[in-house]
């Protein structure tokens, strides 16, 4: 079955730097992959969707890449701010068309 791997260790970076989070999957490449942000005590909030035929997607300070050869998506936040501190979840469809989520990576941006 499809598995998603995200770094369970928190990522700590300084304000202004670029944060890069990794999402690896184990089996077949999904039709698309999504990234969500989750703040403590809140539900996930959709950020970006990237399709398998797209190499890169951008939205303001966010950039997502999708490498079906490496079975990996990278999520970048440029010029990071303390307000970007949250847990970021990767999600994709499994082979039964269910949207499955990774465990998420917690990002902490220090002033």
């Amino acid at each position: 079955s499809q598995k998603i791997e995200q770094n369970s260790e928190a990522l700590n970076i300084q304000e202004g730097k670029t944060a890069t989070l990794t999402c690896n999957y184990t089996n077949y490449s999904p039709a698309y992959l999504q990234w969500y942000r989750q703040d403590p005590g809140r539900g996930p909030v959709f950020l970006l969707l990237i399709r398998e035929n797209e190499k890169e997607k951008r939205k303001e300070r966010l950039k997502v890449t999708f490498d079906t050869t490496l079975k990996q998506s990278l999520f970048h936040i440029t010029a990071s701010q303390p307000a970007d501190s949250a847990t970021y979840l990767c999600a994709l469809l499994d082979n039964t068309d269910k949207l499955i989520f990774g465990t998420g990576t917690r990002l902490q941006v220090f002033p």
Partner: protein
Amino acid sequence: EAGVAQSPRYKIIEKRQSVAFWCNPISGHATLYWYQQILGQGPKLLIQFQNNGVVDDSQLPKDRFSAERLKGVDSTLKIQPAKLEDSAVYLCASSLAHGTSATNEKLFFGSGTQLSVL
């Protein structure tokens, strides 16, 4: 537009008791999902509805969990009897998606119900 509404926000019960959660999705959203999120883990899909029909409930522990979506709008998720391992946040989400491939859309989540089973 109004988001996904869930209640209650918190619930504390003893094991073997029953509990129910309520969800009101975004108006016009055909697909509704219930996810379970255990502390430190990602959300795990329990059940997915398309209008008032069940699309997938393969990960729902049917001996104790039940869910319904009457009239294709609101939904309730029930646990009876609860176990200690059911302690988690129960998230409801909805999406616009229509048709058989209902997950080809972004999900809108509610704030969840935090359940503690003692």
